[in-house]
Protein backbone atom coordinates (compact mmCIF):
# COMPACT_ATOMS: atom_id res chain seq x y z
CA UNK A 1 0.00 0.00 0.00
CA UNK A 2 1.57 3.29 -1.07
CA UNK A 3 2.03 5.73 1.77
CA UNK A 4 2.48 8.59 -0.66
CA UNK A 5 1.03 8.37 -4.13
CA UNK A 6 4.11 10.12 -5.46
CA UNK A 7 5.84 6.75 -5.51
CA UNK A 8 3.39 5.62 -8.15
CA UNK A 9 4.45 5.71 -11.77
CA UNK A 10 1.43 7.97 -12.37
CA UNK A 11 3.51 10.73 -10.83
CA UNK A 12 6.22 10.30 -13.44
CA UNK A 13 5.11 11.45 -16.91
CA UNK A 14 7.68 9.33 -18.74
CA UNK A 15 5.79 6.17 -17.78
CA UNK A 16 2.58 7.34 -19.33
CA UNK A 17 1.88 5.05 -22.28
CA UNK A 18 0.59 6.59 -25.46
CA UNK A 19 -1.60 3.55 -26.02
CA UNK A 20 -2.40 0.38 -24.17
CA UNK A 21 -0.77 -1.80 -26.84
CA UNK A 22 2.69 -0.44 -26.16
CA UNK A 23 5.09 -2.91 -24.57
CA UNK A 24 5.69 -2.67 -20.83
CA UNK A 25 8.02 0.07 -19.62
CA UNK A 26 10.14 -1.56 -16.95
CA UNK A 27 12.94 0.84 -16.13
CA UNK A 28 15.62 -0.89 -14.10
CA UNK A 29 18.54 1.42 -14.91
CA UNK A 30 18.21 3.95 -12.09
CA UNK A 31 21.89 3.79 -11.23
CA UNK A 32 22.50 5.36 -14.64
CA UNK A 33 19.81 7.99 -14.23
CA UNK A 34 16.44 8.33 -12.56
CA UNK A 35 13.12 9.46 -13.97
CA UNK A 36 11.68 12.82 -12.95
CA UNK A 37 8.47 13.41 -10.99
CA UNK A 38 5.97 15.95 -12.27
CA UNK A 39 6.87 18.34 -9.45
CA UNK A 40 10.48 18.61 -10.65
CA UNK A 41 9.37 19.21 -14.23
CA UNK A 42 6.86 21.82 -13.01
CA UNK A 43 9.47 23.67 -10.96
CA UNK A 44 11.85 23.96 -13.90
CA UNK A 45 9.16 24.72 -16.44
CA UNK A 46 7.77 27.47 -14.23
CA UNK A 47 11.09 29.32 -14.36
CA UNK A 48 11.38 28.96 -18.12
CA UNK A 49 7.82 30.09 -18.75
CA UNK A 50 7.18 32.65 -16.02
CA UNK A 51 10.27 34.47 -14.74
CA UNK A 52 13.55 33.31 -16.26
CA UNK A 53 16.52 35.60 -15.58
CA UNK A 54 20.15 35.04 -14.68
CA UNK A 55 20.86 34.91 -10.98
CA UNK A 56 22.60 37.65 -8.95
CA UNK A 57 22.76 40.10 -11.81
CA UNK A 58 19.49 41.86 -12.36
CA UNK A 59 17.85 44.53 -10.26
CA UNK A 60 14.45 43.41 -11.35
CA UNK A 61 11.82 40.97 -10.13
CA UNK A 62 12.67 38.02 -12.33
CA UNK A 63 16.31 37.99 -11.36
CA UNK A 64 15.47 38.54 -7.71
CA UNK A 65 13.10 35.58 -7.85
CA UNK A 66 15.54 33.17 -9.54
CA UNK A 67 18.30 34.32 -7.17
CA UNK A 68 16.08 33.69 -4.16
CA UNK A 69 15.06 30.25 -5.44
CA UNK A 70 18.67 29.34 -6.26
CA UNK A 71 19.81 30.33 -2.76
CA UNK A 72 16.88 28.49 -1.22
CA UNK A 73 17.83 25.36 -3.15
CA UNK A 74 21.37 25.57 -1.84
CA UNK A 75 19.94 25.64 1.68
CA UNK A 76 17.68 22.70 0.83
CA UNK A 77 20.69 20.66 -0.27
CA UNK A 78 22.55 21.60 2.92
CA UNK A 79 19.58 20.56 5.08
CA UNK A 80 19.10 17.37 3.05
CA UNK A 81 22.59 16.15 3.89
CA UNK A 82 22.72 17.69 7.36
CA UNK A 83 25.41 20.26 6.54
CA UNK A 84 25.72 23.10 9.05
CA UNK A 85 26.16 25.87 6.49
CA UNK A 86 24.72 26.37 3.04
CA UNK A 87 28.11 27.85 2.07
CA UNK A 88 29.45 24.30 2.24
CA UNK A 89 27.41 23.40 -0.83
CA UNK A 90 29.09 24.05 -4.18
CA UNK A 91 26.98 23.44 -7.27
CA UNK A 92 28.80 21.63 -10.06
CA UNK A 93 27.73 19.77 -13.17
CA UNK A 94 27.72 16.30 -11.62
CA UNK A 95 29.56 13.89 -9.32
CA UNK A 96 32.42 13.50 -11.79
CA UNK A 97 33.03 17.24 -11.95
CA UNK A 98 32.85 17.52 -8.16
CA UNK A 99 35.49 14.83 -7.71
CA UNK A 100 37.72 16.26 -10.43
CA UNK A 101 37.46 19.72 -8.84
CA UNK A 102 38.74 18.31 -5.53
CA UNK A 103 41.45 16.32 -7.31
CA UNK A 104 42.79 19.36 -9.16
CA UNK A 105 42.77 21.54 -6.05
CA UNK A 106 44.48 18.91 -3.94
CA UNK A 107 47.05 18.39 -6.69
CA UNK A 108 47.74 22.09 -6.74
CA UNK A 109 47.77 22.79 -2.99
CA UNK A 110 48.09 19.65 -0.93
CA UNK A 111 49.74 16.53 -2.33
CA UNK A 112 53.50 16.11 -2.19
CA UNK A 113 55.69 13.60 -3.99
CA UNK A 114 55.40 10.19 -2.36
CA UNK A 115 52.00 10.86 -0.76
CA UNK A 116 49.53 7.99 -0.94
CA UNK A 117 45.91 7.88 -2.09
CA UNK A 118 43.65 4.94 -1.29
CA UNK A 119 40.72 3.88 -3.46
CA UNK A 120 38.77 0.64 -3.63
CA UNK A 121 38.82 -1.73 -6.59
CA UNK A 122 35.06 -1.30 -6.92
CA UNK A 123 35.12 2.43 -7.55
CA UNK A 124 33.42 4.02 -10.55
CA UNK A 125 35.90 5.46 -13.05
CA UNK A 126 34.94 8.94 -11.87
CA UNK A 127 36.36 8.17 -8.44
CA UNK A 128 39.32 6.16 -9.72
CA UNK A 129 40.69 7.85 -12.82
CA UNK A 130 41.28 11.32 -11.30
CA UNK A 131 43.42 9.75 -8.56
CA UNK A 132 45.09 7.27 -10.91
CA UNK A 133 46.03 10.15 -13.21
CA UNK A 134 47.33 12.31 -10.34
CA UNK A 135 49.47 9.42 -9.14
CA UNK A 136 51.12 9.36 -12.59
CA UNK A 137 51.58 13.10 -12.99
CA UNK A 138 52.42 14.06 -9.41
CA UNK A 139 54.51 11.04 -8.34
CA UNK A 140 51.98 9.83 -5.80
CA UNK A 141 51.23 6.24 -4.87
CA UNK A 142 47.76 4.84 -5.55
CA UNK A 143 46.85 2.00 -3.23
CA UNK A 144 43.90 -0.22 -4.15
CA UNK A 145 41.77 -1.98 -1.58
CA UNK A 146 40.27 -5.21 -2.85
CA UNK A 147 37.23 -7.19 -1.84
CA UNK A 148 37.20 -9.67 1.03
CA UNK A 149 36.15 -13.28 0.54
CA UNK A 150 32.48 -12.33 0.86
CA UNK A 151 32.71 -9.61 -1.77
CA UNK A 152 32.69 -6.56 0.51
CA UNK A 153 35.24 -3.77 0.88
CA UNK A 154 38.22 -5.38 2.62
CA UNK A 155 38.36 -3.36 5.81
CA UNK A 156 41.24 -5.43 7.21
CA UNK A 157 43.36 -4.75 4.13
CA UNK A 158 42.40 -1.08 4.43
CA UNK A 159 43.59 -0.91 8.03
CA UNK A 160 46.93 -2.43 7.01
CA UNK A 161 47.26 -0.11 4.01
CA UNK A 162 46.62 3.13 5.88
CA UNK A 163 49.87 4.82 6.82
CA UNK A 164 51.20 8.27 7.75
CA UNK A 165 51.77 8.74 4.01
CA UNK A 166 48.03 8.36 3.25
CA UNK A 167 46.73 11.79 2.43
CA UNK A 168 43.41 10.97 0.81
CA UNK A 169 40.93 8.12 0.88
CA UNK A 170 38.38 8.22 -1.97
CA UNK A 171 35.48 5.83 -1.46
CA UNK A 172 31.97 5.24 -2.72
CA UNK A 173 29.11 5.26 -0.26
CA UNK A 174 27.38 2.58 -2.33
CA UNK A 175 29.26 0.83 -5.14
CA UNK A 176 27.64 1.13 -8.56
CA UNK A 177 28.08 -2.49 -9.68
CA UNK A 178 28.01 -4.66 -6.59
CA UNK A 179 25.53 -2.42 -4.77
CA UNK A 180 27.45 -2.88 -1.54
CA UNK A 181 27.19 -0.29 1.21
CA UNK A 182 30.70 0.61 2.36
CA UNK A 183 31.44 1.05 6.10
CA UNK A 184 31.89 4.78 5.72
CA UNK A 185 31.93 5.77 9.39
CA UNK A 186 34.71 3.33 10.15
CA UNK A 187 36.69 4.23 7.03
CA UNK A 188 36.42 7.95 7.82
CA UNK A 189 37.30 7.51 11.49
CA UNK A 190 40.37 5.40 10.71
CA UNK A 191 41.47 7.79 7.98
CA UNK A 192 41.16 10.87 10.15
CA UNK A 193 43.14 9.19 12.94
CA UNK A 194 46.20 9.10 10.69
CA UNK A 195 45.54 12.55 9.26
CA UNK A 196 44.06 11.65 5.89
CA UNK A 197 41.24 13.48 4.13
CA UNK A 198 38.25 11.45 2.93
CA UNK A 199 36.16 12.01 -0.18
CA UNK A 200 32.90 10.12 -0.47
CA UNK A 201 31.39 9.43 -3.88
CA UNK A 202 27.72 9.70 -2.94
CA UNK A 203 26.24 9.17 -6.42
CA UNK A 204 24.59 5.81 -5.63
CA UNK A 205 24.03 6.59 -1.96
CA UNK A 206 22.17 9.86 -1.97
CA UNK A 207 18.70 8.76 -3.07
CA UNK A 208 18.66 5.41 -1.27
CA UNK A 209 19.99 6.03 2.23
CA UNK A 210 19.87 9.15 4.42
CA UNK A 211 23.12 11.07 4.67
CA UNK A 212 24.08 13.13 7.71
CA UNK A 213 27.32 14.99 7.15
CA UNK A 214 27.78 15.88 10.81
CA UNK A 215 27.51 12.21 11.66
CA UNK A 216 29.74 11.03 8.81
CA UNK A 217 32.30 13.80 9.10
CA UNK A 218 33.77 13.19 5.65
CA UNK A 219 35.81 16.04 4.20
CA UNK A 220 34.15 15.95 0.78
CA UNK A 221 30.91 14.49 -0.54
CA UNK A 222 30.02 14.44 -4.23
CA UNK A 223 26.71 13.54 -5.84
CA UNK A 224 24.55 14.20 -8.90
CA UNK A 225 21.07 15.64 -9.20
CA UNK A 226 20.01 13.31 -11.98
CA UNK A 227 20.51 10.22 -9.84
CA UNK A 228 18.10 11.53 -7.20
CA UNK A 229 15.06 12.31 -9.36
CA UNK A 230 16.44 15.72 -10.28
CA UNK A 231 17.63 17.02 -13.65
CA UNK A 232 20.90 16.34 -15.40
CA UNK A 233 23.51 19.10 -15.43
CA UNK A 234 23.55 19.74 -11.68
CA UNK A 235 25.77 18.16 -9.10
CA UNK A 236 26.93 18.95 -5.61
CA UNK A 237 30.27 19.12 -3.91
CA UNK A 238 30.08 19.39 -0.14
CA UNK A 239 33.27 20.51 1.56
CA UNK A 240 33.93 21.91 5.01
CA UNK A 241 33.55 25.68 5.27
CA UNK A 242 37.00 26.17 6.77
CA UNK A 243 38.67 24.28 3.93
CA UNK A 244 36.69 26.16 1.30
CA UNK A 245 37.44 29.56 2.78
CA UNK A 246 41.18 28.82 2.92
CA UNK A 247 41.34 27.42 -0.63
CA UNK A 248 41.97 29.40 -3.77
CA UNK A 249 39.38 28.90 -6.54
CA UNK A 250 40.08 26.71 -9.55
CA UNK A 251 37.74 27.90 -12.30
CA UNK A 252 37.96 31.63 -12.85
CA UNK A 253 35.56 34.03 -14.49
CA UNK A 254 32.34 35.86 -13.81
CA UNK A 255 30.41 35.64 -10.55
CA UNK A 256 33.33 34.40 -8.47
CA UNK A 257 34.97 37.81 -7.98
CA UNK A 258 34.05 40.70 -5.69
CA UNK A 259 36.36 43.04 -7.49
CA UNK A 260 38.75 42.86 -10.44
CA UNK A 261 40.19 45.99 -12.03
CA UNK A 262 42.81 44.38 -14.24
CA UNK A 263 45.55 44.79 -11.66
CA UNK A 264 44.33 42.99 -8.59
CA UNK A 265 41.50 40.68 -7.73
CA UNK A 266 39.36 40.03 -4.71
CA UNK A 267 37.57 36.67 -4.87
CA UNK A 268 33.94 36.34 -3.87
CA UNK A 269 33.07 34.58 -0.66
CA UNK A 270 32.32 30.91 -0.44
CA UNK A 271 30.42 29.34 -2.19
CA UNK A 272 30.39 31.75 -5.14
CA UNK A 273 34.20 31.63 -5.17
CA UNK A 274 33.92 28.13 -6.63
CA UNK A 275 31.07 28.74 -9.06
CA UNK A 276 32.49 30.63 -12.01
CA UNK A 277 30.17 31.73 -14.79
CA UNK A 278 26.41 31.47 -15.01
CA UNK A 279 25.37 28.59 -12.79
CA UNK A 280 22.84 25.97 -13.81
CA UNK A 281 20.28 27.79 -11.69
CA UNK A 282 17.21 26.22 -13.29
CA UNK A 283 18.70 22.79 -12.81
CA UNK A 284 19.47 23.70 -9.19
CA UNK A 285 15.83 24.71 -8.77
CA UNK A 286 14.90 21.34 -10.23
CA UNK A 287 17.21 19.69 -7.73
CA UNK A 288 15.49 21.59 -4.95
CA UNK A 289 12.16 20.22 -6.14
CA UNK A 290 13.66 16.71 -6.22
CA UNK A 291 14.73 17.12 -2.60
CA UNK A 292 11.22 18.27 -1.70
CA UNK A 293 9.95 15.11 -3.41
CA UNK A 294 12.36 12.84 -1.54
CA UNK A 295 11.53 14.50 1.76
CA UNK A 296 7.85 13.95 1.09
CA UNK A 297 8.37 10.30 0.21
CA UNK A 298 10.70 9.81 3.18
CA UNK A 299 13.66 7.48 3.41
CA UNK A 300 11.64 4.97 5.48
CA UNK A 301 9.26 4.46 2.55
CA UNK A 302 12.14 4.36 0.06
CA UNK A 303 14.04 1.76 2.07
CA UNK A 304 10.89 -0.29 2.59
CA UNK A 305 10.05 -0.33 -1.11
CA UNK A 306 13.61 -1.02 -2.26
CA UNK A 307 14.07 -3.77 0.33
CA UNK A 308 11.11 -5.67 -1.13
CA UNK A 309 12.35 -5.21 -4.71
CA UNK A 310 15.94 -6.15 -3.85
CA UNK A 311 14.93 -9.20 -1.84
CA UNK A 312 12.61 -10.58 -4.49
CA UNK A 313 15.01 -9.91 -7.36
CA UNK A 314 17.97 -11.33 -5.47
CA UNK A 315 16.22 -14.52 -4.41
CA UNK A 316 14.66 -14.91 -7.84
CA UNK A 317 18.06 -14.62 -9.50
CA UNK A 318 19.64 -17.04 -7.05
CA UNK A 319 16.92 -19.56 -7.92
CA UNK A 320 18.10 -19.65 -11.54
CA UNK A 321 21.20 -21.83 -11.37
CA UNK A 322 22.63 -20.42 -14.58
CA UNK A 323 22.76 -16.96 -12.99
CA UNK A 324 25.86 -15.70 -11.19
CA UNK A 325 25.31 -12.65 -9.02
CA UNK A 326 28.38 -10.45 -8.67
CA UNK A 327 29.65 -9.60 -5.23
CA UNK A 328 28.22 -10.79 -1.90
CA UNK A 329 25.80 -13.69 -2.03
CA UNK A 330 23.67 -12.28 0.79
CA UNK A 331 21.47 -9.23 1.18
CA UNK A 332 23.52 -7.85 4.07
CA UNK A 333 24.79 -4.29 3.48
CA UNK A 334 23.35 -4.15 -0.01
CA UNK A 335 21.57 -1.30 -1.71
CA UNK A 336 19.19 -1.64 -4.64
CA UNK A 337 21.70 -2.64 -7.32
CA UNK A 338 22.33 -6.18 -8.53
CA UNK A 339 24.85 -7.08 -11.25
CA UNK A 340 24.79 -10.59 -12.63
CA UNK A 341 25.60 -12.82 -15.55
CA UNK A 342 23.53 -15.52 -17.21
CA UNK A 343 25.52 -18.49 -18.46
CA UNK A 344 25.68 -18.92 -22.20
CA UNK A 345 24.91 -15.36 -23.23
CA UNK A 346 26.92 -12.14 -23.26
CA UNK A 347 25.52 -9.39 -21.04
CA UNK A 348 25.01 -7.13 -24.03
CA UNK A 349 22.96 -9.75 -25.85
CA UNK A 350 20.92 -10.46 -22.74
CA UNK A 351 20.12 -6.78 -22.29
CA UNK A 352 18.96 -6.58 -25.90
CA UNK A 353 16.62 -9.56 -25.44
CA UNK A 354 15.27 -8.01 -22.23
CA UNK A 355 14.79 -4.69 -24.02
CA UNK A 356 12.67 -6.40 -26.66
CA UNK A 357 10.29 -7.22 -23.79
CA UNK A 358 10.36 -3.67 -22.44
CA UNK A 359 12.85 -4.30 -19.65
CA UNK A 360 15.58 -1.64 -19.52
CA UNK A 361 18.81 -2.67 -17.83
CA UNK A 362 22.44 -1.74 -18.28
CA UNK A 363 25.04 -4.08 -19.72
CA UNK A 364 28.79 -3.70 -19.94
CA UNK A 365 31.40 -2.76 -17.39
CA UNK A 366 29.36 0.13 -15.91
CA UNK A 367 32.41 2.41 -15.82
CA UNK A 368 34.01 -0.03 -13.38
CA UNK A 369 36.78 -1.49 -15.55
CA UNK A 370 39.20 -2.34 -12.71
CA UNK A 371 36.49 -4.28 -10.88
CA UNK A 372 35.57 -6.32 -13.95
CA UNK A 373 39.25 -6.95 -14.69
CA UNK A 374 39.78 -8.17 -11.13
CA UNK A 375 36.70 -10.42 -11.36
CA UNK A 376 37.94 -11.62 -14.78
CA UNK A 377 34.60 -11.07 -16.45
CA UNK A 378 34.16 -9.14 -19.69
CA UNK A 379 30.82 -7.58 -18.79
CA UNK A 380 27.75 -7.91 -16.59
CA UNK A 381 24.07 -7.04 -16.63
CA UNK A 382 22.90 -4.61 -13.97
CA UNK A 383 19.50 -4.01 -12.36
CA UNK A 384 19.07 -0.89 -10.28
CA UNK A 385 15.79 0.11 -8.68
CA UNK A 386 14.03 3.39 -8.04
CA UNK A 387 11.08 4.50 -5.96
CA UNK A 388 8.59 3.88 -8.78
CA UNK A 389 9.58 0.28 -9.48
CA UNK A 390 7.17 -2.42 -8.38
CA UNK A 391 7.21 -6.02 -7.28
CA UNK A 392 5.10 -6.86 -10.34
CA UNK A 393 7.94 -5.53 -12.52
CA UNK A 394 10.50 -7.67 -10.69
CA UNK A 395 8.32 -10.76 -11.19
CA UNK A 396 7.90 -9.93 -14.88
CA UNK A 397 11.66 -9.53 -15.26
CA UNK A 398 12.31 -12.90 -13.59
CA UNK A 399 9.74 -14.58 -15.82
CA UNK A 400 11.35 -13.19 -18.97
CA UNK A 401 14.85 -14.01 -17.73
CA UNK A 402 13.80 -17.59 -17.11
CA UNK A 403 12.38 -17.79 -20.65
CA UNK A 404 15.65 -16.51 -22.06
CA UNK A 405 17.54 -18.97 -19.89
CA UNK A 406 15.43 -21.85 -21.18
CA UNK A 407 16.06 -20.74 -24.74
CA UNK A 408 19.80 -20.18 -24.37
CA UNK A 409 20.73 -23.05 -22.09
CA UNK A 410 18.06 -25.65 -22.78
CA UNK A 411 17.25 -24.99 -26.41
CA UNK A 412 13.59 -24.34 -25.67
CA UNK A 413 12.03 -21.79 -28.05
Amino acid sequence: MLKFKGMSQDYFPVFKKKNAKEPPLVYFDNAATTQKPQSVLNAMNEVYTAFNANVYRGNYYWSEKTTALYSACRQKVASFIGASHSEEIIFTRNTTESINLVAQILARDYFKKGDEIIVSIAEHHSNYLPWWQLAQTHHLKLKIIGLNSEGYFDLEQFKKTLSPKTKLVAIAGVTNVLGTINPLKEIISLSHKIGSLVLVDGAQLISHLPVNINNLDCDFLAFSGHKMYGPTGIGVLYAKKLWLSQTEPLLLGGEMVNNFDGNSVCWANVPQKFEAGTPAYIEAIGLGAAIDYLNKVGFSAIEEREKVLLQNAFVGLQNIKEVTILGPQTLKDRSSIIAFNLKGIHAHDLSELLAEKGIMVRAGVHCAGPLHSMLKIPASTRLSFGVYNTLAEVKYFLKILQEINQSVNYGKR
Partner: protein
Amino acid sequence: MEKDKPISSFKNLLELVGGSSHFKHRGLLSHPDVTLLGINESCGDKIILQLKFKDNKVQQAFFNGESCSLSALGAETMCTLLEKEKAVKPIEEKTFLKSLNFNFSPVRKKCAYLVWKTWQNYVSSKPQPISKKKIKE
Protein backbone atom coordinates in the same frame (compact mmCIF):
# COMPACT_ATOMS: atom_id res chain seq x y z
CA MET B 1 26.71 -18.58 -42.80
CA GLU B 2 24.06 -17.78 -45.38
CA LYS B 3 25.39 -14.43 -46.56
CA ASP B 4 22.55 -13.58 -48.90
CA LYS B 5 19.72 -14.18 -46.46
CA PRO B 6 19.40 -11.40 -43.89
CA ILE B 7 19.24 -12.38 -40.25
CA SER B 8 15.65 -11.68 -39.43
CA SER B 9 15.88 -10.81 -35.78
CA PHE B 10 18.22 -10.48 -32.87
CA LYS B 11 17.02 -13.83 -31.56
CA ASN B 12 18.01 -15.45 -34.88
CA LEU B 13 21.43 -13.85 -34.54
CA LEU B 14 21.85 -15.39 -31.11
CA GLU B 15 20.86 -18.79 -32.45
CA LEU B 16 23.42 -18.34 -35.23
CA VAL B 17 26.13 -17.36 -32.82
CA GLY B 18 25.23 -20.14 -30.46
CA GLY B 19 25.92 -22.69 -33.18
CA SER B 20 29.68 -22.25 -33.55
CA SER B 21 29.76 -24.15 -36.87
CA HIS B 22 27.97 -21.19 -38.43
CA PHE B 23 30.99 -18.99 -37.85
CA LYS B 24 33.67 -20.58 -39.97
CA HIS B 25 36.30 -18.04 -39.00
CA ARG B 26 36.04 -18.36 -35.24
CA GLY B 27 39.22 -19.88 -33.88
CA LEU B 28 42.93 -19.29 -33.57
CA LEU B 29 45.61 -19.59 -36.23
CA SER B 30 48.63 -21.62 -35.21
CA HIS B 31 51.21 -19.23 -36.69
CA PRO B 32 49.55 -15.93 -37.52
CA ASP B 33 51.55 -13.25 -39.26
CA VAL B 34 49.66 -10.48 -37.50
CA THR B 35 47.44 -10.44 -34.42
CA LEU B 36 45.23 -7.43 -33.81
CA LEU B 37 43.13 -6.63 -30.76
CA GLY B 38 39.85 -4.78 -30.87
CA ILE B 39 38.27 -3.63 -27.62
CA ASN B 40 34.93 -2.05 -26.80
CA GLU B 41 35.74 -1.21 -23.22
CA SER B 42 32.28 -0.13 -22.15
CA CYS B 43 30.59 -3.23 -23.57
CA GLY B 44 33.18 -5.76 -22.54
CA ASP B 45 33.95 -6.86 -26.11
CA LYS B 46 37.50 -8.04 -26.75
CA ILE B 47 38.16 -9.61 -30.14
CA ILE B 48 41.45 -10.89 -31.51
CA LEU B 49 41.80 -10.81 -35.29
CA GLN B 50 44.55 -13.03 -36.67
CA LEU B 51 45.83 -12.95 -40.22
CA LYS B 52 48.11 -14.95 -42.42
CA PHE B 53 49.53 -13.39 -45.55
CA LYS B 54 51.02 -14.74 -48.72
CA ASP B 55 52.69 -12.52 -51.28
CA ASN B 56 51.40 -9.49 -49.37
CA LYS B 57 47.83 -10.65 -49.71
CA VAL B 58 45.44 -11.89 -47.01
CA GLN B 59 45.36 -15.65 -47.12
CA GLN B 60 43.56 -16.49 -43.89
CA ALA B 61 41.62 -14.46 -41.34
CA PHE B 62 40.34 -15.79 -38.02
CA PHE B 63 38.85 -14.23 -34.92
CA ASN B 64 38.39 -15.16 -31.29
CA GLY B 65 37.72 -13.59 -27.91
CA GLU B 66 34.96 -12.55 -25.55
CA SER B 67 32.26 -10.61 -27.27
CA CYS B 68 28.58 -10.09 -27.81
CA SER B 69 26.93 -11.77 -30.78
CA LEU B 70 26.89 -8.63 -32.90
CA SER B 71 30.64 -8.12 -32.50
CA ALA B 72 31.10 -11.77 -33.42
CA LEU B 73 28.92 -11.32 -36.52
CA GLY B 74 30.94 -8.25 -37.47
CA ALA B 75 34.14 -10.21 -37.00
CA GLU B 76 32.91 -13.16 -39.09
CA THR B 77 31.80 -10.74 -41.80
CA MET B 78 35.20 -9.04 -41.87
CA CYS B 79 37.12 -12.31 -41.98
CA THR B 80 34.98 -13.50 -44.90
CA LEU B 81 35.52 -10.20 -46.70
CA LEU B 82 39.25 -10.12 -46.06
CA GLU B 83 39.75 -13.63 -47.42
CA LYS B 84 37.64 -12.75 -50.46
CA GLU B 85 39.19 -9.32 -51.18
CA LYS B 86 42.70 -10.42 -50.17
CA ALA B 87 44.14 -6.92 -50.61
CA VAL B 88 45.71 -5.30 -47.58
CA LYS B 89 43.72 -2.12 -47.80
CA PRO B 90 40.67 -0.54 -46.13
CA ILE B 91 37.33 -2.22 -46.65
CA GLU B 92 34.67 0.30 -47.61
CA GLU B 93 32.03 0.83 -44.95
CA LYS B 94 29.16 0.21 -47.38
CA THR B 95 30.78 -3.05 -48.53
CA PHE B 96 31.07 -4.15 -44.92
CA LEU B 97 27.46 -3.22 -44.11
CA LYS B 98 26.12 -4.98 -47.21
CA SER B 99 27.98 -8.11 -46.25
CA LEU B 100 26.91 -7.85 -42.60
CA ASN B 101 23.28 -7.81 -43.73
CA PHE B 102 21.82 -7.16 -40.30
CA ASN B 103 19.81 -4.23 -38.97
CA PHE B 104 21.17 -3.09 -35.65
CA SER B 105 20.21 -0.19 -33.41
CA PRO B 106 22.54 2.87 -33.33
CA VAL B 107 23.52 1.97 -29.78
CA ARG B 108 25.00 -1.33 -31.05
CA LYS B 109 26.97 0.21 -33.92
CA LYS B 110 30.30 -0.01 -32.14
CA CYS B 111 29.70 -3.72 -31.52
CA ALA B 112 29.06 -4.45 -35.20
CA TYR B 113 31.92 -2.22 -36.31
CA LEU B 114 34.55 -3.41 -33.83
CA VAL B 115 36.63 -5.61 -36.15
CA TRP B 116 35.98 -3.40 -39.18
CA LYS B 117 37.47 -0.48 -37.23
CA THR B 118 40.32 -2.65 -35.97
CA TRP B 119 41.23 -3.54 -39.58
CA GLN B 120 40.82 0.04 -40.80
CA ASN B 121 43.16 1.30 -38.06
CA TYR B 122 45.69 -1.37 -38.93
CA VAL B 123 45.82 -0.71 -42.69
CA SER B 124 45.85 3.05 -42.27
CA SER B 125 48.78 3.06 -39.85
CA LYS B 126 50.89 0.10 -40.86
CA PRO B 127 53.42 0.59 -43.69
CA GLN B 128 53.98 -2.06 -46.39
CA PRO B 129 55.38 -4.70 -46.61
CA ILE B 130 53.58 -6.75 -43.95
CA SER B 131 55.82 -7.61 -41.03
CA LYS B 132 55.50 -10.68 -38.87
CA LYS B 133 55.20 -8.74 -35.63
CA LYS B 134 52.64 -9.90 -33.09
CA ILE B 135 50.82 -7.02 -31.46
CA LYS B 136 50.62 -7.80 -27.75
CA GLU B 137 47.54 -7.20 -25.71
